[in-house]
């Protein structure tokens, strides 16, 4: 069946795609840290971060429309949480919102804080989109493993990634079966049917897990998983890492 592939552009070939996953994880995590730790008044720094990320996006050959669409899809959630912010910070009151019996003063500092949080969230989302779309998810997981993230966690995540599509297909088949058997049922009946679908999905997933486990035992699985690690950090990786860190530092320092 058809899936919206998660890491659609991760198999392109570019300077960014060729970098070692460990280096990429480190660099993008550093980007997020720098962005999050930048004081809110430094408007120019945020603009420079944005330029830097746009530059990387251009280098990676990921279509800008894709990145834009993907990042904007996530913004409603950010706005929902950010909507509380401007109403409480003490400061110059711009106007007061009368919501029934509560009076909510909207202040200048509050608005500044909201803008700051939204910008930081957006730039961080851009970072993760770039990270995920410039490396194969499997390579990324291996990178995490090499970076001393506990092996068991990485293995569970990689299993989940492997079976996600299988189980989604199962769910889709059940949905098709439901729709072909019940004509526009709604309300309580629909909720009951959907809950039973979740129940069946649980049982089938559990049985699938047991079968997978037994199949693994047949093939000599005793606990640890062995994988082939073919890649190592090259000179170009180190240059890339150093270059990015210098730029990030420069942006951070220039704002002070």
């Amino acid at each position, binding site marked *: 069946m058809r899936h919206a592939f998660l890491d659609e552009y991760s198999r392109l070939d570019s300077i960014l795609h060729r970098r070692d996953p460990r280096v990429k994880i480190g660099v993008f995590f550093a980007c997020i840290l720098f962005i999050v730790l930048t004081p809110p008044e430094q408007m120019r720094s945020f603009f420079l971060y944005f330029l830097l990320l746009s530059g990387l996006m251009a280098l990676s050959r990921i279509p800008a429309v894709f990145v834009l669409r*993907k990042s904007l899809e996530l913004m409603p959630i950010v706005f929902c949480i950010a909507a509380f912010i401007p*109403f409480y910070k003490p400061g110059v009151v711009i106007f007061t919102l009368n919501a029934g019996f509560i009076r909510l003063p909207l202040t200048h500092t509050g608005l500044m804080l909201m803008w700051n949080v939204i910008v930081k969230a957006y730039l961080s989302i851009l970072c993760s989109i770039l990270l995920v779309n410039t490396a194969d998810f499997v390579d990324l997981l291996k990178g995490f493993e090499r970076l001393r993230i506990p092996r068991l*966690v990485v293995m*569970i995540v990689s299993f989940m*990634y492997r079976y996600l599509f299988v189980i989604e297909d199962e769910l889709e088949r059940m949905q098709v079966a439901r729709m072909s058997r019940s004509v526009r049922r709604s*309300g309580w009946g629909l909720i009951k049917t959907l809950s039973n679908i979740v129940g069946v999905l649980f049982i089938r997933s559990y049985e699938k897990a047991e079968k997978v486990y037994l199949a693994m035992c047949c093939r000599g699985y005793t606990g640890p998983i062995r994988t082939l690690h073919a890649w190592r950090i090259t000179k170009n990786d180190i240059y890339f890492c150093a270059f990015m860190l210098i730029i990030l530092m420069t942006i951070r320092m220039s704002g002070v």
Partner: protein
Amino acid sequence: MHIPDGFLSTGTWVTTWLISAGGLGACIRQASRSLKDKVVPLMGVMSAFVFAAQMLNFPVAGGTSGHFLGGVLAAVLLGPCAGAIVIAVVLMVQCLIFQDGGLTALGANIFNMSFIGTIGGYLIYRLCNGVFGRRFIIASIAVASWASVILASSACSLQLVISGTSAFNVVFPAMLGVHALIGIGEAVITCLVVSFVIKVRPDLVYKSEGSHE
């Protein structure tokens, strides 16, 4: 309820990261003890199940729809530690691939939904079971799932307040009000799913004291 990057103060996200990392390690040790080498395939496939189940849209009153969170469901069916691992893995994948929740805020999100929501929900479930008795298992699950959503959202609001991004008197009523409603949906769905599983495969429901084999 997924907190994005930039909303939490440095102290808050570092602390919650440390707590979550430690807690997750303890949960994995605990789960490995009862599941042995089955822990990787079982937890992996079950995380995929929770992820897929969260994609199912349930009709809510007034033409809107929502999905369920599955914390208490995972805890009741798989046990508290395994449930917490499953929810944490789902959060990690949502953060990494879908950018749903920030990387720095991942610790806080795991803390809220895996530990407060799932393990906390399970404790409430056990408590209710003790008070009402085993005959009212479904009622206990209803109370626990509603409470778990409320608890997780209040932990989330508390972190926002501590970080200075929100005021207590604004964020608490709003978050709790919304999540009191979401919790009702969660309770209804969790009860229906668990009663279905009890009817069809009662052996799959987690029984405490390591009788999982």
